[in-house]
């Protein structure tokens, strides 16, 4: 057999050689080709299978789940929509009126948040249709936190890339000491937090000048950037209890605003890191010529810099949105019912006495992960174009 193929190929290579050696540079030998494809396809299967299993389980009924594994819809079992009915409309309170109310509240909350972030948002009715509630909560919190985080973060990153900051070592020291003093005063002596904070701030502005003269060493932009990025190392569990106490003190537990603030702060390091990279890569000449023409600093940022970094900005926004959507630990501490997000609601399903109703669970997981998968596919295009990788490579 090998003889005939040898003749056909008009080659003096033996069978072993043809199997193991590449025919030309930049090509692969037969064996390595087969191995490569089989490993890649095996992994593709491994990646797809859990997702596939969740999706088909969402269309099963109790019998199809409990009587052993069934793999293929319409062949092994008859798919039905029981699980979806539970979540989307068999709830007696969840009629068109309830959904309409949710939407009105959604619009109202968004509007109220833009007008004045400090007023407490109108709570969405906790009893009405938990799926819609959690979904709208997730959307409101995710989008608001992302916008807040990206706008603050990109401005901070631009400032760090273009303006030289030289905070004096003494000032930083004063700030740390006063913050510490404020906290000790609040927790021991029982002084109200707003009073101690105000006194602390006043003292800071008074003492800053004096201490600044004493300790002349200054920190640079690099130090600030490193400090911001190093926040990533901080495990969230460390700060979560103080944050919980803080929000308890100001009465913001279980509100959207609390989660929005925390998410925005938690993702700030990533945004600053990524955006700083994009801004630093821009040619500075453009901005200088705009400055000569009399553009303001903010004008330059808005009209010139942001349009130039649009792909980077889009990728960062998307990444932040996904991270906010998936966040679990902060939400489990800070929200109980009204501001429950999707992951919390899914986890709460586990607590029932009947054990986990897998088909209902799967339906809700599908609802939870579809937006993320769509966003991931879009985000992947940016990564493939190398937009995000410069930052990852550090």
């Amino acid at each position, binding site marked *: 057999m090998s003889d005939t193929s040898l003749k056909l190929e008009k080659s003096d290579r033996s069978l072993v050689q043809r199997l193991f050696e590449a025919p030309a*540079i*930049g090509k692969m030998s037969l064996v390595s080709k087969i191995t490569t*494809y089989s*490993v890649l396809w095996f*992994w*593709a299967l*491994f*990646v*797809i299978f*859990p997702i596939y*299993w*969740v999706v088909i*389980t969402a269309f099963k009924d109790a019998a199809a789940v409990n009587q*052993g*594994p069934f793999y293929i819809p319409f062949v092994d079992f008859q798919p039905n929509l029981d699980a979806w009915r539970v979540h989307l409309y068999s709830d007696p309170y969840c009629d068109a009126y309830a959904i309409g109310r949710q939407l009105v509240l959604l619009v109202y909350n968004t509007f109220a948040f833009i007008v004045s972030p400090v007023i407490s948002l109108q709570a969405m009715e906790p009893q009405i249709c938990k799926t819609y509630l959690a979904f709208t909560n997730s959307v409101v919190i995710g989008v608001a936190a992302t916008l807040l985080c990206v706008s603050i*973060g990109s*401005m*901070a990153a*631009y400032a760090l890339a273009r303006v030289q900051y030289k905070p004096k070592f003494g000032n930083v020291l004063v700030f740390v000491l006063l*913050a*510490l003093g404020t*906290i000790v005063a609040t*927790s021991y002596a029982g002084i109200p937090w707003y009073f101690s904070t105000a006194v602390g701030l006043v003292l800071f502005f008074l003492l800053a000048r004096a201490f600044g003269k004493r300790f002349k060493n200054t920190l640079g932009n690099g130090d600030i950037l490193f400090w*911001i990025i190093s*926040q990533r*190392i*901080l*495990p*969230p*569990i*460390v*700060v*979560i*209890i*103080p*944050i919980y*106490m803080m929000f308890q003190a100001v009465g913001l537990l279980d509100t959207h605003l609390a989660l929005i603030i925390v998410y925005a*702060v938690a993702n*700030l390091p990533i945004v600053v890191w990524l955006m700083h990279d994009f801004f630093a890569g821009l040619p500075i000449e453009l901005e200088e010529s705009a400055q000569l023409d009399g553009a303001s600093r903010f004008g330059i940022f808005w009209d010139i810099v942001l349009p130039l970094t649009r792909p980077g900005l889009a990728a960062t926004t998307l990444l932040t949105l996904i991270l906010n*959507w*998936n966040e*679990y*630990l902060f939400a489990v501490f800070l929200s109980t019912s009204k501001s429950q997000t*999707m992951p919390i609601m*899914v*986890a709460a399903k*586990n607590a029932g006495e009947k054990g986990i109703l*897998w088909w209902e*669970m*799967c339906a809700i*997981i599908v609802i*939870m*992960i579809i937006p*993320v*998968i769509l*966003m*991931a596919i879009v985000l992947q295009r940016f990564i493939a174009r190398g937009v995000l*990788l410069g930052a*990852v*490579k550090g």
Partner: protein
Amino acid sequence: MLLLVFAIFPTFYSVVFALSRVKFTANGLRFRFVWFDNFLAQFSGNEQAHFLGRLTEISVLGWAFFVAVTAATLWWFFKSFRNGASAIGLVGRFISASMAIFIAFLLGATLLSGNPWGTLMTTMFYVVVGCSVQFLIGTGLAFLCSQPISGKNFFRVLFFIPLMITPLGVGYAFKMVLDITKGPLQPLWDAVGLQNWAWSTDAWAARWFVILGDSWQWIPFIFIVMLAALENVSRDQVEAAEVDGASNVQIFREITWPQIMPVAVTVILIRMIEAFKIVDLPNIMTSGGPGIATESMTLHSYFLWRANDMGSSAAVAYLLLILTVVVCASFFNYIVLGQLRKTK
């Protein structure tokens, strides 16, 4: 640009807040200063078995391992001392060395002596084993994907997706897929005679299955970054080496590996930082069980908080922070910086 101050203030405030919180026990909302009692309880009190593991009855093998690692660490420390490292460098090395000796002691006293682990060692297990497994598989896949194959974009998109899926969803999906009686692998369990086996009651099996779920989610991250690094390796050098008749192994070792090494160590560092924070997966898949076998430190702290023991909860959280910072900083200083210097 004053916004910079507003951006940093909340983060900073919470960090400082947390720092001082540790010294208090929360009793309702009144605080009592108890020095380091919360910390000491983790190391010596009744919480010791939970946090560190059971430390009695240390076997000969455990002692031998501990002595060997201690000797090696001390030798390394004195070598750098003799080579005239700076004062700060010495302090850093001292901290790293103490941490290494401490972890070696725990390893010898628990694993090698047949005693159960505490949450600290479980966290280290997730970090060390998880990172190694994920790095090896992720880099392997990236290498295969960087070969001239068709359908590269398809694989790239597909392999990227798990990274972005909600970790909670991943936990439930794996709990379901790995179910012995109702899961899709049931014929397989039957075939190997394990139909009555409950992996969630077997400490080691449970730990490995948590790592399996974690790997499913995080291998894509390493894959994506390493693929980009591999595609940046200059084709000219590789082709020149091929013309000169170098074998594939030689090409990989001499040309490709040195070029991707800086990215590789950086990606491991980032992955390590994230791995220390693992909480969703063990919480969902096993609730930390059997016993405390799969409980990570974050989960430990969360359970303590749920039991209204805020002081201990904060203490565990702080110990996690110390562990993370020391391990990551050691890795950064001795390995990442070393590699970066070598390439420059």
